[in-house]
């Protein structure tokens, strides 16, 4: 017995248990690491026969459910820095809008696909490797990565942080910095997310940890808060402009993801920050390797459906 659901926008039929299972798995990761999971879910949906444009747009819709569930769970645990989240969100929205224009120019030049894929692999590789090595060292007790001692000579980045105007306190995160810093970093993540065609959670998390020096558990909750609003915006835009949101597909994914996000948030609260980071780093590296293989190995077909990257 394997009931199927007909997806009217995707124009295909997919096993219901498979969709709910995928939703649960990605929701779990969402609650665990504070990522939307788009960089994982979209390729998985394409693999099971969903057209790329529908996969990407619908994924945004289901991420709204998973991230709202996860964000609420983290908010109740006091892990959401709303002030920081709103500044990052503002930068992210502006950066995303600019990133879309950059993609448009790249497409006109005919090199968009190459640059997008190379950016993807390099970003995933860099972020994943850095986080993995850093967390491994921390777990071995060599260095406490996110916290630097006062006796160390401040780096150029720290000096820049201190020199920027509009300094303010972020009590929830326990940090003090210029408003411009999270705004500019949000802008950068927004540009990269638009170029790569993802929500940006997996870039935002390392940015919060390493550049904004936020504690890991606040990072996860705040990232989910950001992802939630970004995906609400994307869902409405995709539904109105491209008609590519498949509601029934999203509902099936949501059924699994909202439960998965709750489970993930609870597991997250029991793990150490470095354990979380090393798990996320492994996941990011896994996706990078998969993407690298897809770039190196001859595809089954030299034709592919249009849409997506």
């Amino acid at each position, binding site marked *: 017995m394997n009931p*199927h*659901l*007909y997806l*009217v*926008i995707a*124009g*295909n*039929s997919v096993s219901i248990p498979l969709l709910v299972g995928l939703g649960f798995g990605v929701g779990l990761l969402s609650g665990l690491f504070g990522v939307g999971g788009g960089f994982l879910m979209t390729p998985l949906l394409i693999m099971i*026969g969903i057209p790329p444009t529908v996969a990407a747009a619908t994924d945004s*819709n*289901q991420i*709204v*459910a*998973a*991230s*709202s*569930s*996860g964000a*609420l*769970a983290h908010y*109740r*645990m*006091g*892990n959401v820095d709303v002030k920081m989240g709103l500044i990052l969100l503002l930068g992210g929205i502006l950066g995303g809008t600019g990133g879309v224009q950059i993609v448009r120019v790249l497409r006109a030049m*005919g090199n968009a*696909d*190459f640059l997008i*894929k190379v950016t993807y692999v390099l970003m995933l590789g860099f972020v994943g490797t850095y986080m993995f090595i850093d967390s491994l060292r921390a777990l071995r007790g060599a260095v406490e990565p996110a916290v630097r001692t006062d006796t160390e000579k401040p780096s150029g980045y720290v000096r820049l942080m201190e020199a920027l105007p509009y300094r303010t306190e972020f009590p929830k995160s326990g940090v003090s910095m210029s408003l411009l810093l999270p705004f500019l970093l949000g802008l950068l993540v927004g540009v990269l997310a638009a170029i790569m065609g993802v929500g940006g959670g997996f870039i935002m998390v390392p940015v919060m940890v390493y550049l904004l020096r936020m504690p890991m558990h606040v990072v996860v909750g705040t990232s989910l808060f950001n992802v939630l609003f970004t995906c*609400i915006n994307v*869902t*409405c*835009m995709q*539904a*109105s402009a491209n*008609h590519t*949101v498949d*509601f*029934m597909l999203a*509902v099936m994914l*949501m*059924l699994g993801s*909202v*439960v998965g*996000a*709750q489970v993930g948030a*609870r597991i997250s*609260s029991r793990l150490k920050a470095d354990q979380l980071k090393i798990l996320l780093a492994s996941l990011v590296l896994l996706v990078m390797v998969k993407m690298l293989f*897809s*770039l*190196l*190995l*001859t*595809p*089954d*077909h*030299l*034709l*592919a*459906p*249009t849409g997506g990257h």
Partner: protein
Amino acid sequence: MITRIGVNLPGVLNSLICTFVLLLGAQEALAGSAVPEKAALALPSKVTQREDSSYLTLNLVPHTVQIGLFFSGGKLSVRGTLPAGCDAVLIIRGPQQEREMHVQGKKLGLWMTVGTATFKNVPALYQCLTSGAAQEIMGRETATAAGAGFQRLKEEMEVRIEVGGVEQESGVGRWKDEFVEFEQSRGLFYLGESELEIGDGQDGLKKVSGEIVIPARSPVGSYRAVLLALKEGLPVARVEETLSVDLMPPVAFLRRLAMEHGWTYGIVAVIAALGAGLGVGAITPSKGAH
């Protein structure tokens, strides 16, 4: 639904008629009016035969494929009759369409999208079932002329390949092959040799039966089914049926909402997602802060 009812004649007489129409070979018998889409189903002048469909019947059950919320593909039962001594070929074609696809190629040693391919005049679905090995029951020329097999599809296709904004003039045939292979991998193009069964019938006629699978990704529209009777490798009669693939009301409503009221659809989708997420979050007990 039976479109043409077979005439009650003894088997010997059927065979004689079948041979007779084969020998006639009158080109004028293939009038365009009997061929709904000449490009797909006309027979070449060399092999044209007087059409005599009196003994050929085709019945597809169900006649309409209804796509509901739990649709996972439809199975059509093929039933019909044909004169004794004849082979059978069944061709199902979906609505004609234009398809745009990405072309994959290597750039600096990496595989990626390097251009676009536009395929015009291709059916959304093509399925061909035969009662024997295609090479044995009809020659290549007959098969191509009758639209049985993929060769005719490739001949009908118009292809435009653009790589880096430049139209490619050469290698079009290779891309047609690629397209057919791609659609075969998705189950939309299918050639089922020896999948039509011919058995004993009544009144000297033979029964023909088989099963057609309409994949879930088949688009809505009107489909044509043509059953050809072949004698000694040449078509001697043809009968045609139409079938439709339709959306059931709830599915049609969702589609209309998505396509015609995108903003409303998007907002409903967001509210539903927030409801699900926050609802589950609200009923799940909090464990407190770290």
